[in-house]
């Protein structure tokens, strides 16, 4: 809580609004999945919006962001329009990817969201490639890749950390450690509890923060981002977080203890930031409800727009 006051109130207010947009969007996606209007394998990040918001809202459109299968929050925070994102999840022609990609393959090049990847760990070297391009061209562009703790046990992770440090690439590795790789706790996959410790031998700054304390994520990422922009190389930010939903929508979620309501009230990054804002005095009493209402209305509009977009009649000629 104490760090919350060190981040500008305008920033925090923006992060709160962003988290509400993601929360409202994903709750609607969950409902539409149950109604069979949204298609495919759907992985929600509800409960983990703080990381997406605090990282992506510090980036520019020309910075590249890569995500994994749980990507909606990252795309939205990076600037992907809700209506075209929703249309993509619904397989519509007006979707970001003309209905060719879906939830696990969202791409919005205009906002530097270079893409979600459905293969765990497969996105990490792609970010290195974008970082290499930035470096080759002498720009201060950075690349950011989000991945879960499950990806850390993939060979690509270690190969990529080695390369990123060897070449001092402007890439930021953001691990969302929610303690579960699909249905299995981290303890069953590895003896190393903290992802930050996995990269200990490599010369890169590593920091582990409470991913549900948005201001902490912002502050930590801000410092690592400044280094990367200045050409000082890669960094790893481990955000300890929690996904409120199962691995995918429809997951019976029998492999872990349900979080009690009181516990969740304490952990929820949105509620925490609202309490902090109230305590610090930058968040007027009525504003949270207003932000939520605005976000839900925007999502409603997005759904209406997406429903009005037709299904594609064929795979576009230029994609064949």
């Amino acid at each position, binding site marked *: 809580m104490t760090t919350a006051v060190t981040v500008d109130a305008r920033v925090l207010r923006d992060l709160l609004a962003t988290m509400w947009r993601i929360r409202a969007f994903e709750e609607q996606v969950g409902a539409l999945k149950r109604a069979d209007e949204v298609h495919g394998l759907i992985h929600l990040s509800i409960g983990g919006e703080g990381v997406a918001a605090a990282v992506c809202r510090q980036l520019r459109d020309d910075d590249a962001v*890569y995500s994994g299968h749980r990507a909606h929050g990252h795309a939205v925070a990076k600037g992907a329009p809700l209506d075209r994102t929703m249309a993509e999840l619904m397989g519509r022609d007006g979707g970001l990817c003309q209905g*060719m990609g879906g939830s696990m393959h969202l*791409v919005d090049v205009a906002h530097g969201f270079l893409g979600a990847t459905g293969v765990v760990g*497969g996105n990490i070297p792609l970010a290195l490639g974008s970082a290499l391009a930035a470096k*080759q061209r002498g720009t201060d562009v950075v690349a950011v890749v989000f991945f879960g703790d499950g990806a850390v046990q993939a*060979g690509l992770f270690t190969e990529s950390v080695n390369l990123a440090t060897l070449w001092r690439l402007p890439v930021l590795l953001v691990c969302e450690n929610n303690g579960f790789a699909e249905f299995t706790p981290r303890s069953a996959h590895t003896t190393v509890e903290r992802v930050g410790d996995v990269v200990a031998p490599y010369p890169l700054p590593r920091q582990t923060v409470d991913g549900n304390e948005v201001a902490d994520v912002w502050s930590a990422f801000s410092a690592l981002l400044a280094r990367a922009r200045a050409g000082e190389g890669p960094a790893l930010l481990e955000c300890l977080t929690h996904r409120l939903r199962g691995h995918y929508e429809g997951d019976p979620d029998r492999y872990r203890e349900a979080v009690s309501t009181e516990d969740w009230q304490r952990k929820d990054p949105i509620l925490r930031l609202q309490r902090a804002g109230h305590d610090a005095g930058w968040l007027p009493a009525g504003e949270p409800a207003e932000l939520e209402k605005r976000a839900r209305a925007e999502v409603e509009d997005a759904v209406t727009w997406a429903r009005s977009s037709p299904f594609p009649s064929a795979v576009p000629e230029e*994609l064949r």
Partner: protein
Amino acid sequence: MTDLTYAKAISTTIAQAMRADPDVFVLGEDVSAGGPFTTTAGLVEEFGAGRVIDTPISEAAICGVAVGAAQSGLRPVLEIMYVDFITLALDQLVNQAAKAHFMSGGQLSVPMVLRTQGGAGQRAGAQHSQSLEAWLTHVPGLTVVMPSGAADAAGLLASAIASPGPVVVVENKVLYFRREPVPDPVEPIPLGRAAVRRAGRDVTVVALSRMVGEALTAAEELATEGVEVEVIDPRTLVPLDLDTIVGSVRRTNRLVVAHEAVLHGGFGAEVAAAVQHAAFDDLDAPVERVGAPFQPIPLSPPLEDAYLPGAAGIRDAVLATLGRVPTSTL
């Protein structure tokens, strides 16, 4: 024209592309040293270590780096030293490179080249001698090129580097030090256009990579027996110039497909199926295929020699399409 080896044709083409476009760069294992076959020799001296990048032995990651760099606008020429090691890079090649343009609705493009080499004949054993091109042709989104000589190695690579999508160039290790006149400067050869290497009226032989030379040897031998073989080199497997192949079969009414890869699940089956569908009524005999037996490649020299398909097998297959009992003299 300059007389160049297949290997020198490759390094010459890469250098020409790097001079013309600052976005073209090379990465791979040992590339600044030229690699085991000298295909990147001399590049680091001209372009520096910033554009000729040695990588660790991390095929998966370096392939992903190439994909990401291409998505961000560069034109990487990635070397995977042996096609046998492409297994390690397949996730990035198959799930990322091949699909990015499609899955993003055309927003992303991946103008990368993955150069690798296959083929047996160097007593290298079963993990350094395979011909795995059929796997690659099974993945929509990849262009697959197999040059059979130095001029094609240059011209097809020039087109591959200029291509807007991912191209895999499968070279052949036995061909690297064979010489041939190559245009100077290198002229791009369009992808997807076959070359008729020898005209003939009796039997069409479609041969890939090293087997083109073997087919020409068989054709010379058969010509002395009064059999005129037409040898077609598809040059690119995807896209395949089926028109040229079918046009030839309509005249010869007989087809043999020859590759070094194992027959089972090999690219020859695809050619045979496509031709019988397009020209069923023109075929006077079943399509014959020539390839390696369905087993790993043995190390022992006499066994490897026996394993490798070549001119003798092509000659027998040609005679089989003519209904003659082969009595091989090759």
